[in-house]
């Protein structure tokens, strides 16, 4: 018989995980950030066309309902914020369908926190503080780095990520041994940015250091606010260590109308691509209408953090039961 009943990771790794969770809880407790829990299962889904959700059937005969497993706890947490919870954090499972690879397992553990009144730079300070604390005793990271998306992109590629030039992007792809990018990306600026960033830039980010990339192009704003001073960029930050994407943060969108518009736009894209139908979260829109306090929020993939803390090569090595053993 194969040994697949056994955990894929060692007891030491389980201890390391427990220690990490303890450290995180201690960190936020000292800062008076409240730990919360929100439902993993709900009646609505995210609408992001880049994220595939899991669905399940809720049977309450004679009725049957379609429920969604969360791709992140973001919407429910924002409802708590709008209801006056103050700053909150959560450690929970998130589920993303079809994601499987060296750094992906369809079920994974996420740390997400929201800070009332924080701007994005303040959130970045706190992220660096938390990461530094978690690495203490394992490895000394070099000083955290901060780059704007544009300066980073220009430094590595000499292309301007904020102004799309089909010709320049094509020439770059041909000169850098990825001619297939031309047929994959076509005239889709956001897709070009994903391609070039993930292939040519990300692998080189944050060598033994936390690297924070802010001012993402507006076409990649996701749920972040568009920057007040420069409409070409959004108040979004991504964090990397040793080329691994660890997390993503926003100066949160509080405008209910704008949120509703982005939902509809994404639902439209999903329809065009014939993706499973998403159900938009009316509660979130109502919460934004009631008033979401100004805040910033960050989400960190804790399994990936464990990969880095333990010098492992893949997410499968830090989970006790990765999907193929689940």
């Amino acid at each position, binding site marked *: 018989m194969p040994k697949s009943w056994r955990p894929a990771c060692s007891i030491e790794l389980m201890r390391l995980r427990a220690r990490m969770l303890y450290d995180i809880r201690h960190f936020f407790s000292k800062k008076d950030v409240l730990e919360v829990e929100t439902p993993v299962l709900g009646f609505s889904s995210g609408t992001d066309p880049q994220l595939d959700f899991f669905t399940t059937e809720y049977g309450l005969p004679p009725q049957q309902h379609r429920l969604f497993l969360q791709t992140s706890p973001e919407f429910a947490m924002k409802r708590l914020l709008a209801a006056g919870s103050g700053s909150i954090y959560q450690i929970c499972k998130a589920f993303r369908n079809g994601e499987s690879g060296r750094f992906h397992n369809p079920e994974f553990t996420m740390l997400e926190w929201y800070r009332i009144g924080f701007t994005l730079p303040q959130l970045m300070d706190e992220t660096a503080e938390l990461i530094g604390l978690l690495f203490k005793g394992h490895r000394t990271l070099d000083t955290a780095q901060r780059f704007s998306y544009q300066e980073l992109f220009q430094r590595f590629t000499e292309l301007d990520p904020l102004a799309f030039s089909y010709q320049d992007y094509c020439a770059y792809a041909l000169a850098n041994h990825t001619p297939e990018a031309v047929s994959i990306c076509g005239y889709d600026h956001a897709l070009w940015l*994903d391609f070039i960033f993930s292939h040519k830039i990300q692998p080189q980010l944050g060598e033994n250091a936390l690297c924070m990339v802010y001012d993402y192009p507006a076409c990649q704003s996701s749920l972040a606010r568009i920057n007040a001073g420069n409409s070409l960029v959004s108040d979004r930050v991504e964090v990397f260590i040793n080329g691994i994407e660890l997390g993503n943060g926003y100066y949160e969108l509080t405008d209910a109308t704008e949120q509703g518009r982005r939902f509809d736009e994404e639902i439209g894209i999903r329809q065009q691509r014939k993706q499973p139908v998403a159900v938009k979260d009316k509660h979130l829109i109502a919460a934004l209408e009631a008033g979401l306090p100004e805040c910033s929020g960050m989400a960190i993939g804790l399994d990936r953090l464990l990969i880095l803390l333990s010098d492992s090569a893949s997410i499968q090595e830090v989970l006790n039961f990765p999907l193929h053993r689940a």
Partner: protein
Amino acid sequence: MASYSTNEFKAGLKVMLDNDPCAIIENEFVKPGKGQAFNRVKIRNLKTGRVIERTFKSGESLDGADVVDVEMQYLYNDGEFRHFMVPDTFEQYQCDEKAVGEASKWLKDQDSCTVTLWNDAPLSVTPANFVELAITETDPGVRGDTSGGGGKPAKLETGAVVRVPLFVQQGEVIKVDTRTGEYISRVKE
């Protein structure tokens, strides 16, 4: 032939890419948290042997390639083609020098090897990992040297040249690792 999605790409899978048969070596799923998913794939072109990297949008697919490895016996060289036979069925195949490639310097009549067939036509030949061949030409060694340090070139019956220890003599049969081209030992007749 079936087609395979990027999710099914794993090491060893044979697919058609740019009209050439290829073997997948490595498949890495690359996905920015908020972005498009890609598969970065390392592929060997089985015609040229060259390894390239190619990115696909996750979910894209490639046609499978009808490529199989068959154990065969090398029969003879008629000057233009080399002839091989499947021992069980006596089915015969002929290969030009291009398909035989580097393997030619290790092929001795009657020896076993692996012939890779694409649509039932030979694509490449891989010799056994270890072959035993006679030395046809080498300088006389220095008497008493048994260390194997230094060494000298020796030409084998198939034309290959390998470095052998000084004590190994012309006419002797030696065992060679074809993957590295290195001398392993003498073979007692």
